[in-house]
Structures are given as structure tokens and as C-alpha cells.
């Protein structure tokens, strides 16, 4: 059953067990330092702020023009995510979070940034990464977090009509061995 239910007004109601909900609340801290550009893995920065041009002079001009917009946009997504979590409701059954319709896009973008950050930290380079986890891997906890965020992002996409299974089945008509990431 999808823990994300779309309401009549277009908002999404997310119901999570306590443990997953608390993990989610700790997520903004992970990316806050990155947006301040202090002491971070440069590969993560390169991935979250990718180049637009191969040519370095064009790229420099582009950065001057639009670099701050990108940084601002990522910060706004994180702030929207944090603000939504401030209003979460805790009950014995778990945690409920109401995501306003206008905040859904920023939630998806922020979850994706978190996943990209973890993907770089875990050195993921293959599409079938989810099938190749070694249980003795020292970064198993980070893999578990990546799985949680992937699952959550997919649940939100499912709730707004982007069912991963539908796209995966279309792909498998061409390549039966294929997985789910693009």
C-alpha cells in the first residue's frame, strides 16, 4: 500500500513509521553544508551543480549568469522540505506529513538531490546498483538510506501518476535484463 495518498485538493498525505519519519527530519542537515560550499566532496558539488558547457569560457559565463539561481533554487527546495516537516503530526501509529500541492515539485527535487549526494558518496556508477549491495559493505547504512529515499520518491511519483512499473515494463520490452534507474 502506498504511504502517500493524494487528497482532493491536490496535496499529498504521507504516513510513515516513527523511525523513517525521524530519518527524514534529519535530511536537511546533510545538504545544508553543501549549499554553503564548505568542506564537501567536490564530486558531489559537481553532480549537484553540473556543467552546462564543455567549453570553459562559455561555462564561466553561464555560471556568472545562472549559477546563483541554481544555488538559490536548491536552497528553496530544502527550505520548503524543512517547513513541511515543522507541521508533521505524531501519533502512536507513526508520523503524518501533509505536502501542499505547490510543494510537491520541490519535495521531489530535494529528495532527488539527497539521492544524488548519496549516490556519489557511495560511488554508484551502474544502473542496477540496487541489486549489487554487499551486506558486509561498510557503508551499508548509507545504502539503506538511499533505498529509503528512493522508495519515498517513487511513492510520491506513483501518487501523482508516474508509476515506475509502467515505465520499467515499457523498457523491458526492449531489454528484458534492465532495471529501474535512468
Amino acid at each position, binding site marked *: 500500500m502506498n504511504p502517500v495518498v493524494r487528497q482532493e485538493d491536490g496535496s499529498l498525505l504521507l504516513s510513515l513509521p516513527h523511525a523513517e519519519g525521524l530519518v527524514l527530519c534529519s535530511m536537511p542537515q546533510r545538504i545544508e553544508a553543501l549549499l554553503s560550499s564548505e568542506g564537501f566532496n567536490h564530486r558531489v558539488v559537481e*553532480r*549537484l*551543480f*553540473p*556543467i*552546462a*558547457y*564543455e567549453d570553459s569560457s562559455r561555462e564561466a559565463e*553561464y555560471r556568472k*549568469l*545562472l549559477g546563483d*539561481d*541554481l544555488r538559490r*533554487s*536548491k536552497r528553496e527546495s530544502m527550505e520548503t522540505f524543512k517547513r513541511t516537516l515543522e507541521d508533521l503530526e505524531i501519533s502512536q501509529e507513526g508520523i503524518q506529513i501533509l505536502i501542499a500541492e505547490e510543494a510537491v*515539485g520541490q519535495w*521531489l*527535487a530535494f529528495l*532527488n*538531490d539527497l*539521492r*544524488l549526494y548519496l*549516490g556519489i558518496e557511495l560511488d*554508484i*556508477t*551502474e*544502473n542496477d*546498483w540496487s541489486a549489487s549491495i554487499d551486506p558486509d559493505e561498510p557503508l551499508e547504512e548509507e545504502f539503506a538510506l538511499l533505498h529509503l529515499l*528512493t522508495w519515498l*520518491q*517513487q511513492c510520491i*511519483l*506513483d501518487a*501523482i501518476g*508516474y*508509476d*515506475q512499473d*509502467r*515505465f*520499467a515494463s*515499457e*523498457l523491458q520490452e*526492449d*531489454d528484458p535484463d*534492465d532495471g*529501474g*534507474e*535512468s
Partner: protein
Amino acid sequence: MSTDLMVVPGEVFLAAGKPGGVQLPEVETETSTRRDRLWDVIVWDDPINLMSYVVYVLQKVFGFSEQLATRHMMEVHQEGRSVLTSCELEKAEMFVSRLHRHGLQATIEKQAG
């Protein structure tokens, strides 16, 4: 592919290609490059982005139908890249900026030819 010609104020040039005409030097200015040429917006494969998320973003940024967005997503997945549109430079930069905001890897390339 069009290129602008250098026009020197106050000087009269005869039409190039006509008898007695002068071939004006073809000087490609930055303004003409930005304004006239078409630029490809390219999205690249990524092992983390979900297929459904890529379709969602392409529909949101470009207004593609689900069928077209899915076709581009599958091309990215299978070929490693897909040209999403060809347009003026300012528009291409706006599209790439929006794709970057959503976490997709996208670049701009001058259209060949």
C-alpha cells in the same frame, strides 16, 4: 548556418558575388552566435535518477506529452543521451538551468552544420 557580416559604418560595399562586387569578410560576432544559431539541449544518462522522475521532469520543463517524454527517457537510458530540443541560446540556457534544478545532467551544444 547563418553568420553575420562585419559592417563598417560610412563605407559602402558592393554586393558580394556580383561582378565587381567585394566579398565582405565573414566575421562571426558573439552577438550573431548567440542570436542566430541553434543549440541542442542534451540530457545525459545517470544511474541514480528514476525513470519515472525523468519523465516527470521532462513533462514539467518542456511540456512534452507523456509519450514523447517517455521516448526521450528511454533514449537516454539506452543510448546514454538524448537531444531534447534545438533552439536559440538563451532558451537553451533556460532549459538547461531548469533541468539542473531538478537534478538532471544536461548540457548545451552548438548544433552541427
